[in-house]
């Protein structure tokens, strides 16, 4: 029964990872940018929500209303002010740019709030740890269930948005071929800025939920980036439904790893990530070389 309980916990944890990875996957899918500041932008949102709760007593659930539009504006400005320029210089420069941004955000937050560990859990009361008892041994946490539901709704909503709205179709067209998109009347610059706004807003959403479910510091961003990156790679980079699956696989692997050994939480997640990555590389090599025989044949 303990494994069933861990499986449920892993799936729900996967919802958080999917939520966190959503923006990373979306930004790569549209602009081919791997945003190394993604985790730090999530922490930035967590810090803003913490500041609102701490200084003005605003509920973290109300803080979403203010923080998410703010993060969308940050994303829009980030694209227009930095990423757009760096994209012109090749694929490596945006990577370095977002790496630099990550360092600036981390140290800026440290200057603002100091190195103390913080959490929004006290601000949401019992909701942070209450749960439903499914059986005598299996419990489902309210907050974990809410985060999972939000992740499914966000990823599903984004998929519907991309398929059934004109802006969504414009984003997909621009992602596939920005030059031709301009020839059908799409302002690719504007579409990129909108996509960045959506991606950073979703990072903010994940950041506030992170602050509700555990503690964070100004330097928590890189760890969150690793989890997001692993979920994206496991699920297939650029795929929204794959991101949900990737998050769940990572979450289940971590909870099972923790069940086997207390040190196994992180290690099991990394092992699954590496196994999937290796599998993808072998599969790609097999495809490009025409089967296993071609892969292992000696080059003349």
């Amino acid at each position, binding site marked *: 029964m303990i494994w069933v309980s861990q499986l449920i916990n892993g799936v729900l944890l996967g919802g958080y990872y999917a939520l966190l990875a959503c923006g990373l996957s979306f930004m790569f899918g549209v602009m081919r940018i791997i945003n190394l500041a993604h985790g730090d932008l999530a922490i930035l949102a967590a810090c803003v929500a913490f500041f609102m709760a701490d200084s003005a007593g605003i509920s973290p659930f109300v803080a979403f209303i203010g923080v998410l539009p703010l993060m969308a504006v940050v994303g829009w400005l980030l694209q227009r002010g930095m990423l757009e320029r760096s994209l012109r210089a090749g694929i490596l420069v945006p990577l370095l740019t977002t790496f630099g941004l990550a360092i600036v955000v981390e140290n800026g937050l440290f200057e603002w709030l100091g190195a103390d560990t913080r959490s929004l859990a006290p601000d949401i009361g019992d909701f942070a740890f209450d749960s439903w008892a499914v059986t005598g041994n299996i419990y489902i946490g309210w907050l974990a269930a809410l985060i999972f539901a939000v992740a499914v709704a966000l990823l599903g909503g984004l998929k519907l948005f991309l398929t059934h709205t004109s802006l969504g179709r414009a984003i997909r*067209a621009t992602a596939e*071929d920005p030059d031709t998109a301009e020839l059908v009347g799409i302002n690719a610059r504007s579409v990129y800025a909108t996509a960045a706004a959506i991606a950073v807003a979703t990072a903010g959403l994940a950041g506030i939920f992170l602050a509700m479910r555990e503690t964070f510091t100004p330097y928590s961003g890189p760890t969150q980036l690793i989890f997001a990156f692993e979920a994206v790679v496991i699920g297939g980079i650029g795929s929204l439904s794959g991101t949900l699956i990737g998050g769940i696989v990572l979450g289940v692997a971590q909870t099972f790893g923790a069940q086997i050994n207390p040190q196994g939480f992180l290690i099991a997640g990394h092992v699954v990530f590496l196994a999937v990555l290796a599998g993808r590389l072998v599969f790609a090599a097999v495809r490009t070389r025409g089967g296993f025989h071609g892969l292992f044949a000696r080059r003349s």
Partner: protein
Amino acid sequence: MALLGVERLDARHGLLQAVRGVSFEVAQGETLALVGANGAGKTTLLRTIAGAHKPAGGRILFEGIDVTAIPAYARLRAGIALVPEGRRLFTEMTVKENLLVAGACGRVGPWNLDTVVEAFPLLRRRLASRAGNLSGGEQQATAIGRALMTNPRLLLLDEVSLGLAPIAVEAVYRSLEALIAGGATIVLVEQDINRALAVATRVACMLEGRIILEGRAKEMTREQVTEAYFGLGRARRAAP
């Protein structure tokens, strides 16, 4: 006033000058066919007019307004649509989505999803198919339909018959003739001289980036155009 005016246009690909001081005008309702051998500069000229290629010099006037500096998406919204060489469809999207994405540009007119499907009946049963899975003829019909969805005032068509089976070429040209009969203004790049002479009101022949022969299609013979095409005859520009 001409719908399109091109004045001393230059365009480069790095050190190579692909278009050299080209000037011409296209009146409302006219069909101009640009013919010429590979590398003559036809595609670059069309892409420069559409805003997909930056000019090195000269001016492009559309309805008397200088559009040389405005981006491609704004030119489309002004009414210049390009069907690019190789179709350049959004292959991950369905045919319907390819059409709708262009239809959202904000221009109003007679063309919508229903009228495009009516003009290209072969698309009716393929609307839900991914554009990447279509045959060449279906892809070309989708590409032209996508441009029409923007309700253009000027349609630029680049090598619409290239790589198509003869039966598909016939189908595409039947649709084009219907468009021309309906009063559309078209600049058409075509390597098939016979087809160019058959559908166009005027023909311009390009060689090494310049227009070396231009005149009314009815007044030109296939031999004249062929000589200019290969740079054999004496260049001349007849009065439009």
